[in-house]
Structure formats: C-alpha cells, structure tokens
C-alpha cells in the first residue's frame, strides 16, 4: 500500500496544526475563483479555512458551493441561506448523502443538480439556488424530505435532549418546505428497527435515524473515539457501535458528540450528566443552570443543548479561607474557573526531600543544564531562582514554592483534567473564594469554543507566558537580570503563536526544513529518529522543555559545519494533548543575536544533544535474541548486574545503597535473569525513559549522562513509579514535618508522612556507585545492554554459560 507520508505538509489553520497533502498545499497557493451565485458575480478562494461552531479549525479545505453561498448570503448580506442542509454541518467533512442541499450548477459540462455541501466551486460555474430556480430544485428536495419522513418515527421517551440546535432538524426542514407528514405520498415504513437503551446516558432509536452520518463523523473525525460506524447495506443499513454491540456495552466513552450531532433525535440524551462529580462535591456544591452559563462570559458561543446535556458538569463551589480546593498528587478529572477571591498555589517544601544535596561531578554538569533531560530543576541554584512548572498560570520558585492566583488568571487544573495527570500543586483559598468546577467535556468545549479560547489565550499571552518563560530552563540565563528578562519577554510576546496538537499528531518530521522553534506548554512530546535499523524514541519532552532549535541553529555562522544542515534531525509528535508555544525561526535567530549568552548556551546544548544521539545509536544494535529483547535489555543504558556464579547473596550491595541514601535502599537484589546474570531491581537508565511521561512538576528528569534523577519538587503522586515497566521506582514515605490530629484520639497529634518517588541515582555520578564498590566478590557491575550481551557471548564462546 502506498505511503502518504512523503506528501505530508504541515499547515497552521487557526491555531490547529493540520496535515495537508501536497495537492492541497498547491491549491492553497492558487488565486480566487470567479463564479456566479444566483446571478451575482462572486470570488472565493479555492481553499478555505473553516471553524466548527466550537471554534476548532478543520483541515478540510475545499471551498464548496455551500460555503460560497453561505458567505455570499449570510456573512456578506446577513440574509438567510437558501440551501437547506441536513447531513452537512460546516465543521464536518461533507459526505453529501441526504441530498437536500441540491442546487443547480451550470458548467461547461452542462447544467445539473448537484449537492452544494460537497461540490467544489469551479471557475465560471453558475450556481442557482431555489431563489432563482425553484422549479428545478424544490420538487426534488421536497420529495427527498418526504421519503425521509415516510420512514421517520420520532424518538419515544421523555426528557430527550436533542442535538446541536436543540430542535428536530428534519421536522424543521419539512415545515420550511411546507411538507405535511399526514399527506406523505409514500408508503409509511413500519417502526421495526431496533432501539438501544443500554447506555445510561444516550438512547439510540434506529427508527428515527436517517443515516445522515453526522454521528459517525462526530465520533471518528471530531472526537477521534472510533466507535461508531455504519453496518449492513442498502435499505437495511444502520449505525452500529464497534461490532454492533449495544451502546452501553461498546467501547463508547459517552462523550455525547453523536447525540449533539444528531439532527433527528435518533441519538438523544436520556438523562443529564450527573454522576461524574463525586457525591461529596455534589452535596456541597450547586450545579449551575445552563441558562445561567449561557450568560457567563466564558461560555459564550457554546451550544445550549451541549450545556443542557452537561448541566451537572459545572458546579459552583465556595471555599472558606484556608480550605483546600485541590491537593497535589491527587488524581482528578476537573478543572477550575476562578470567580472570586485569591488562591494560594503551593507544593510542599522541597527541602524535606530524601534526596541528598547534590555534589561532585553532577553539580558541575548541572551548571550547564544541558542535554536530553534538560528540565526546569536543572537550573543552577546560584544566581537566578529555580522555578517549578505547575498546572496553573503561575510558576513556583524553587526556594519558596508558593504563588497567588486571582480570577483574572481564569483557569487552573487543565492538565489534570485533559490528560489525567495527578494534581501538580495544592490550591488553598486565601480568603472566601468561589470557583466553577468543570468536567472534562466542558473544558474540552471551552478549549474549542472560539470566545472562551480567545479569553484563555489572552490570559496566557499576558500573564502565563512570563511565568512560563521563567520556568523554561533555557531562559534562566536571562532571568538573572530582571531588566533583560523583561525586555526579552516584551520582544517575544507578540511573535509567539499558541498551538494545540492532538495526541499522536506529528509536529514535524525528520528531514523537513526547519522553520520554527517550539516550547512545550503542556503535555508531552515524543522525539524519535529513524535511521537504518528502524525508528527509535530518543526522548520525551514535558512542560518547560523546548525543541526544534537544532535545525535553526545550523543557519548561524558560528555553527557552520558543526550542527546539522538546516533539516530536522528527529521527528517530534504529540504523546497526548499538547499545547505548544511556537516562535518563527527568523525571530528566534534574531533574539539569539540580541542575547549572546542565550545563543552560546543553546549551541552548547545542541551539540550535546547531537552527541547524545550518536552515543545512543552507537549503543543500539539489532539483535534478535528473544529473551534479551523481551526483557527490554537492549534499551538499558546502565543497569546493575550481578554475576550469580560469584554472588553469595550477602546483600552488601543493598546495605551499601541504604547507607548512602538516608537508610532507604534504592535497589532490590532480585529481578529478571539473563543467562547467569541477575538484573537487580534498580534503575536501568533506559534509552527510552517512559517514566518521564506525565510528571506534573517535571521533577523526574534525565541528566546529560543519561541517568534518571528525581528532583526535590516531587510531590509523591506516583505517576513515574506507575510508568516504569520494571518496578524500579519506589514511593518512600518520609516525615513531612507537619502534624495532624489522630482520628482515634483527638488529644494526640500524629506526624504526617508524605511520599516521594525514589530511584537509583547512580550515587550522583561518582565513578563507582556504592553498590558496586561494596560487593566483596566482584559480582556486581554496572553495564549497558550491549555490554551485557557481549559478556554472555564471550562466556558462550568459552562454554561457561548456563
């Protein structure tokens, strides 16, 4: 099967990065097309950028007759669009199955009825709608609507919430065309199609379905849930979930998009969403009426049915001074819109961490904070302040991780809500506060809806960006000088573009011309390279990281011959919902010119990154040793290996580890075996460190030596421990220094413990880690996968293996 990748072309439509084929790119460059609509000469571009009612840009870019007519009548003249639509909505890819949008189009090939929603405009085309040629169009359209009505049985049941427009679109069109169901000329269909009430939220009545395909596109194209499809053929075709499972038993996540898309109520809301908030929230809070939300400034432009359907997905909560709104480390599925009061953002003081003060070689490296694992915490303490990114429009200083938010900051908790990460900080009411707590559906809609998106972006630009740039370690050289930093922010602010990338979408591909520089605002970006020998994930970049600089830096005179050739050296794609800050390449280079310290720093980093790439690749060899591969050993960068022929199980290694880490061991002398070697349960420094993904405070990082290091800003959420496939990250309880009343004895105060993630730190870069050093039998060593394999080979050759 052919590959389309060579034709991929990234284009920013609105704020959505979309992928266009080569053909569409060529079309984008064409001039406008002249045609006539109902006798008026008009001009429209061949390719359009469209938004759905929720403000999301859609990559489908051909200008259709319907688009042109809509622009001509509705936008330019504020008149009603004479073309009825049923299977089509402007935010969907047209499929032209219902045929009610027929218009008469005259081209060189003659004059004929054509579906306006799908037919592209052509130069010289003469379009007649029912305004100028009713005789050619209306009888056909009326007959089609009559056909649909003859088989249509309105959905049964009470309190059914209808789709997007809140009305039965089929009946509305019929009324507009003057069709009376009782006078329908066609034999009435019997309502013998099934009805599916298996979902608690949405009822499916196939007798009301007209197979317009809107729910299917909603499910697949818009929400990317890939559950709904059509089944069967011809007159017996109908919609189906998965392998025609009942909706409630299918993989449907009940996002409601199908219901919102349905024009006839075949898919309708059975009840309102009410069970998603935990009961304790619902007892203390009041659901906000959809009517009230409709007048709320943040909710402008969101459809009424959507708000009605999600009527219990927004609650107003009040908090007294000192009450906690959300707590770091907890999982949640909601975000918060601030209405009143001031809010304190804090993470527990990092000083109580179990980590030892960094010393020796490591701190030397950290001065440059370079390499793959570059993350906020790598910024040196001396000089500037270190900042920790959290899931709110503020950044926390490392020394004093507290900040204040106000209603003008609008929203916090987005990342937890969208990507299911744990809360990154504890938010406490500083005075009596009011918030709107919203569930994922609603946040998703706010991010798609044009009005609220603008508000959110404006806040971001004005306030969050400053904080964000402060957090980004790259710019820490600038933050030391307040004036220079302020100047820098002022320069960068107008040029950045905020873009959003869907899970799995490619941001750029290896080999592309480098054109932009990116900073990760939220979510995770996967960096992978393809060389002979296949694809390889090189890194995961979380909030606060940057990428895309290498291709740009090669344009500088200072780097000629040392950094690449202006092409992308890796493919970057989104791992989850990713928000990026994008800076045009020219502007980026201009800024570097103005800030030489930044430039030299970046060049250092880039060289280091390239060197690391080479090193990683040189470690990789294609081996087909099943056991070796199945244990993921080829991916190990540095693991503790015990030769079981020598090991006497004395456990000196474990003791040594505990001794050097405040009495808590970070290795367990047990684990997988490969030939005569035991791979101890201890961090392997994977080349593909999945543990990094999802850390809410970017506390877990990879250092330039490739080791995994957990910083003081760890809030103990356990995400990394959950991610590690080998169980090498442990959650350790440590005293927090706080006390709380004993629940069983009110007179007594108990010490509160908190959790920190710990993993082997290779004893912070000393030449021989204590475990290896301590082994009295020379059984322990630290090696990478390649070396281990080589050992086993040599032993094999010498006939000394198992």
């Amino acid at each position, binding site marked *: *099967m*052919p590959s*389309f990748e060579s034709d991929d072309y990234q284009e920013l439509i609105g704020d959505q990065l979309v992928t266009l*084929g080569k*053909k569409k790119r060529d079309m984008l460059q064409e001039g406008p097309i002249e045609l006539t609509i109902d006798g008026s000469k008009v001009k429209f571009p061949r390719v359009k950028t469209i938004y759905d009612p929720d403000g999301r840009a859609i990559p489908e870019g051909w200008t259709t007759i319907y688009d042109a007519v809509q622009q001509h009548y509705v936008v330019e003249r504020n008149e009603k669009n004479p073309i009825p639509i049923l299977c089509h909505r402007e935010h969907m890819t047209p499929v*032209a*199955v*219902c*045929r009610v949008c*027929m218009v008469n189009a005259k081209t060189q090939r003659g004059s*004929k*009825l054509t*579906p306006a929603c*799908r*037919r*592209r405009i052509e130069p010289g085309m003469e379009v007649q709608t029912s305004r100028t040629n009713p005789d050619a169009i209306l*009888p*056909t359209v009326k*007959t*089609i609507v009559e*056909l*649909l009505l*003859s*088989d249509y049985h309105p959905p049964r049941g009470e309190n059914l919430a209808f789709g997007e427009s809140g009305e039965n679109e089929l009946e509305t069109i019929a009324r507009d065309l003057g069709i009376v169901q009782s006078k329908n*000329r*066609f*034999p009435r269909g019997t309502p013998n199609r099934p009805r599916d009430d298996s979902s608690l939220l949405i009822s499916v009545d196939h007798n009301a379905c*007209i*197979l317009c395909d809107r729910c299917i596109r909603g499910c*697949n194209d818009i929400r990317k849930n*890939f*559950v*709904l*499809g*059509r*089944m*069967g*053929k*011809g*007159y*017996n*075709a109908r919609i*189906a*979930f*998965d*392998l*025609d499972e009942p909706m409630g038993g299918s*993989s449907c996540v009940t996002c409601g998009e199908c219901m919102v898309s349905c024009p006839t109520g075949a898919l309708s809301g059975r009840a309102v969403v009410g069970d998603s908030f935990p009961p304790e929230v619902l007892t203390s809070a009041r659901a906000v009426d959809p009517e009230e939300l409709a007048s709320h400034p943040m909710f402008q432009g969101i459809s009424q049915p959507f708000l009605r359907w999600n009527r219990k997905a927004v609650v107003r909560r009040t908090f007294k001074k000192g009450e906690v709104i959300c707590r770091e480390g907890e999982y949640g599925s909601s975000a918060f819109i601030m209405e009143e009061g001031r809010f304190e953002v804090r993470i527990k003081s990092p000083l109580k961490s179990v980590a030892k003060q960094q010393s020796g070689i490591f701190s030397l490296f950290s001065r440059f904070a370079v390499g793959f694992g570059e993350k906020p915490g790598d910024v040196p303490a001396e000089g500037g302040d270190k900042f920790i990114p959290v899931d709110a429009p503020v950044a926390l200083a490392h020394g004093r991780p507290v900040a204040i938010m106000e209603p003008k900051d609008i929203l916090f908790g987005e990342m937890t809500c969208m990507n299911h990460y744990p809360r990154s900080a504890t938010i406490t009411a500083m005075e009596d506060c009011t918030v709107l707590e919203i569930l994922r559906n609603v946040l998703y809609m706010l991010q798609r809806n044009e009005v609220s998106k603008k508000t959110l972006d404006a806040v971001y630009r004005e306030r969050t960006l400053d904080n964000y740039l402060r957090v980004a370690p790259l710019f820490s050289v600038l933050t030391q000088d307040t004036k220079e930093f302020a100047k820098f922010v002022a320069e960068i602010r107008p040029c950045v573009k905020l873009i959003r990338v869907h899970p799995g979408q490619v941001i750029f591909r290896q080999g592309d011309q480098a054109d932009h520089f990116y900073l990760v605002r939220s979510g995770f970006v996967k960096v992978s390279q393809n060389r002979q020998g296949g694809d390889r994930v090189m890194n995961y970049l979380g909030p606060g990281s940057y990428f895309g600089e290498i291709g740009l830096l090669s344009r500088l005179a200072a780097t000629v011959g040392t950094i690449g050739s202006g092409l992308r050296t890796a493919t970057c794609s989104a791992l989850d919902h990713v928000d990026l800050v994008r800076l045009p390449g020219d502007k980026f280079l201009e800024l570097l010119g103005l800030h030489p310290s930044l430039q030299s720093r970046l060049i250092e980093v880039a060289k280091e990154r390239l060197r690391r790439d080479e090193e990683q690749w040189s470690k990789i060899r294609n081996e087909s040793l099943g056991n070796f591969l199945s244990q993921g050993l080829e991916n190990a960068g540095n693991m503790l290996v015990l030769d079981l022929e020598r090991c006497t199980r004395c456990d000196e290694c474990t003791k040594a580890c505990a001794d050097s880490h405040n009495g808590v061991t970070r290795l367990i002398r047990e684990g997988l075996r490969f030939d005569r070697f035991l791979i101890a349960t201890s961090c392997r420094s994977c080349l593909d460190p999945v543990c990094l993904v999802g850390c809410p405070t970017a506390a877990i990082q990879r250092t330039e030596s490739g080791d995994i290091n957990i910083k003081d800003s760890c809030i103990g959420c356990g995400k990394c421990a959950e991610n590690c496939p080998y169980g090498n990250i442990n959650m350790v309880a440590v005293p927090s220094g706080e006390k709380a009343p004993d629940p069983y004895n009110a007179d007594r105060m108990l010490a509160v413990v908190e959790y920190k993630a710990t993993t082997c730190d290779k004893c912070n870069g000393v030449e021989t880690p204590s475990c290896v050093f301590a082994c009295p039998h020379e059984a322990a060593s630290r090696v990478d996968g390649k070396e281990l394999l080589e050992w086993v080979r040599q032993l094999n050759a010498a006939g000394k293996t198992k």
Partner: protein
Amino acid sequence: MIVQELHKIQRECGYLPAERLKKLSEQIRQPLHRLHEVASYFPHFHLQPPAFAEVKVCCDMACHLSGGDRVRKHLEGVAEQIGGQKVNVKRTSCLGRCDGPPAVSINDHVYWNMSDEELETIVRSAAAQQPLVEQTIGTLAPHWQIDPYNGQGHYEAIRRWADAWNADANPDRDIKRMQLGDAILKTLKEGNLRGMGGAGRPTHEKWTNARKAREDVSYVVCNGDESEPGTFKDRDLMAFAPHLLLEGILVAGLVSGAKQGYIFIRHEYQEQIAAMQIEIDLARSRGLCGENILGTGISFPVEVFVSPGGYICGEESALLEAMEDRRAEPREKPPLLELDGLFGKPTIVNNVETLCWVPAFLAKGGGWYRDQGTHGATGLRFVSISGHVAKPGVYEVPFGQTVRELIFDLAGGMSGGRKLKAIATSGPSGGFLPAVLDLTQVSPRFADRLKKRGIVSADAVRLDILDLTLDWDLFQRDCLLGAGFVVYGDDADMLVEALNCVEFYRNESCGKCVPCRVGTQKMVEMIQDLLDGKRHDDLATLHDLAKVMSNASICSLGKIAADPLVSALRYFPQDLTKHAKGL
C-alpha cells in the same frame, strides 16, 4: 488489507468470529467499527457460522423468466425436509450464468443449466458436508477476432514496446514513455475504442488524462466485477482469453507509467480468477509482467483482487472504495478517477473487454477495428444474450447489428414458440423496449436519428424493434446500450418484470444516499401495490419518485433504478390495467 484479512479469516473459520475480528483490530490497529462496517456490508462475508449448505438462488431477469422463484421454493422445501437448519436457502442477485438459468450458488460453487433434481442432489450432499463438484464453462476457446494470437499469449505489443524502449538510448524515461505512448493512444483514438462496460467513454481520453496527471504513483484497475443481470461476456473473455486482458493492462500500465495494476474480479467467477492468476504467473515467469519487464527497467506488477461481492462494486468509484478497504459506496463525481482515484492517485479504470481489445488494436490497427461495424456503425463488441431465446450465450458482433440479426441469426430465434414482447438492451439498466415502438413515445431527437439513418421511413410513426440497429451513436443518451441483451416473450408480464428489476436495484443499493436507499424500497412497495390493484390513481407519485432518483442519486445505480418501471408504464399500459381490474 482489511478485505484480504477478512477473506483469510473466513477461509480459516468459515465465517468471521467476533474474537478474530477483535484480534485483527489490534493487529492492524484499526477500530472495530471499521472492520464491522466492511464485514457487514459485503454479501460474501458471514458474521455468523453458515449452514452446511448455503444455497443462493438467482432470481434476476433471465433467471426470473425461467423460474428462479420456483426453484428457490423447491429448494426451500428440500431444506425443510433435511431440517436441523443444515440448509439455508435465499435469493441472491445475478450470478453471471444467465445463459443457463436459473443459476444457483451452493457454498460458493455456482451451478447452472441444472434440473431441479440435480440441484436437489447437490444441496443434499452439501448438507451432508460432502465435497461438491465444480461446474466449469469449458475450455474450448471460440475463434474470436479480438484475439490476434489465436488463443496463445504472444504479448507482441509488450515485446514491441520493449524493443523500441531498449533501442532508444535517450536517458529521459518520461520522454521515451510519452513518445511510445503517443503512437498507442493514436491507434486507440483512430479506432475509437470506447468503454465496453456500457458508459462508452473513449479509452484514449482516460489514458491521456491519467498520463497527464503525472504523479509519482498511479494505478490501472481492470473492472472485472461484471454483476449486471444479463451480462456475462467478461466471464468468457477472462476464461478463454486471459492473455488479452493481461496484455491490455500491461499496455495501459506502460502508457500511463502506472506503478501497479489490479484485476478486480467478482468472487463468483472462481474459474476466471484462477485463469487470470495462472496467466499472470506465466507472464511473470516470461519476464512480461512484474519487475523489469523484458529488460526495460520498467516494473509493473499485476495482481488479482477478489471482490467481496455486490453489484455496486462494478461502479468504478465504489470498486476503488472496496479496494481501499471501505464499504463499496460510490464517490461523488467529479473528481475524475483518472486524476483522483485509488488512494487519491491517478487511476485508469477500464472494463475487461475494453482492455481485451487493446492487443487487437495494436496488432491490426485502429482502422481495422473501425471498419468492422455494420449499418453505418464502427467497431466490434461482445454481447451476452439471454432470456426467451433458443441459444443464449456470448457473441462477438459488429456495432450496428440489428435486433433481428441478434435474436434470429445468432441466438437461434425465440424459445418455446413465443412471440417477441420486449427487449432490454443493457440488462435492467436501460429499461425495456417494446416489440413495436411508438415513435411519439420516444424523444424527438431519437426519432429523428432513426429516420435520418433510414431505419424507419420519414413518415413512419412506429418502429419494428427488430429493425433497430444497436449502436451507441444512434442511442446516444436516449437509450442505454450495454452488453446484457435480454429478450422477453409474449408471456412475460412487464410490470412483474419491472418489479423484478427494481427489486434487484433495491437489494444492491449501497444505502449511502437517500434517493436510492429509500427510493428503491418505496418504489418496490408501490409496484407491489399496483400488482395488488392498489394505487392505480397515483402514478404521478411514481413518476416523481423516478425523476428524483434519477436527478439526485450519487451514482448510476440510483439514477437508472427506476428505468425498468418507467419504461414498463410507458410501453406496456395493458400490463398495468390488467392488474387494476384485479385480473
């Protein structure tokens, strides 16, 4: 990928178990509904374990005339006798054996020309899970003018191309291809080779368009999904002259610079699938097909793609959809497939016969072909004749032949001493023409052309249909001329036959667009009403519906689905009134 994988699972398990679909979904990383959409759409796939004997009886046109319904009822009785749900009998659409009606498919083996008793024996052995005999159409190749090689695969056109290519030292392959292609296109244009699937679009035009599209990847697809009732000429061409088809595709591939050729064949043509496969393997072993054709460095592999079933797959854009692993639902046109076809790439889609003619064109010249017509028409074609004639079958005939010559000279006259009542010139698609055509009932343009050609006299008001010459230039858009010629004797009730045809379209509608999906069903119900003596005062609604289906449907299936009814109402009012009286 999906279609082939489903074929594989079905071969293994006899049907598509849900667990296997779930596993497949994980393997190929496609959502479940994508697999189910495809699996539930094509009639070839079973989602439930099939009976020991899956019996499908064709009841379209010729099979309907010769008692398909009766055979079905008989076999249903047999099934009941056997019991235990071992036998499942149902109606199916045309199996392409209209010359031996009624055709019956038993566990995907197709049988024809069989007595009820013979069929019953086969059904019983299938129910007892015994192996079934294979019925073949024979191996004796007829002497056809289409075959310049007399049954042997000489591939002279390919050899000539290769010689010229290798002799030319010009390093620019594109220029070489254009130069060599120009000569071939000129020959096709000179003889005016047109699409023999029925649409009659000039072949050189399609090829030229595809060649101009100049994309890095393009395809040639041969449409061998011949599923129109009454049409079975491609069946014989593929069985007897696979070398012509393969050479035709190879030439199309060389001229257009395509990367890959496919032959899409309906799954009921097992014999033809095997013949093409053997021919492709043979040609590959002789270096004529595949990598580096005859040392030219040009690669053009050809593959057979077995259709998962359905008449709609014969609609060229639906065919491509099926090849792209989707429900075979026709695309909106434009864009033309030559510019935006398979996987969005330029694609030449040609009928089997069209491609089969290419070697003869290149061997004997376009002028030779053009001179083959008769009664003022040009060229040769293949026609399949069925229905109430003595010798139904496939015939190579000149364009312009009269209906009389076709029925009486070739097909041995009417069967069973019947008188001619009606003909269908393109299976069910063009509707029916009566034995005597009232010229006031046809379009004035058509009547004029008949007069100009001297087929009727200038003052004639009627045409004896036997005098009609079968020629695209005469028919133009007023009448459809396809390869399925079906003859109805005077005992046929044309309203019943119209219902039979509209039922076929209803059964084969893909269900994508409303006018066709709902329209064909309503039309079937309304014709049944007419046969029951009801609704005779409301023919206007039927005519309105027919018009809307023709105006607003996406593809030709919906556009022409009402034609059999409209023609029956127009030309055979007596067959309508007799039902009105309740006779």
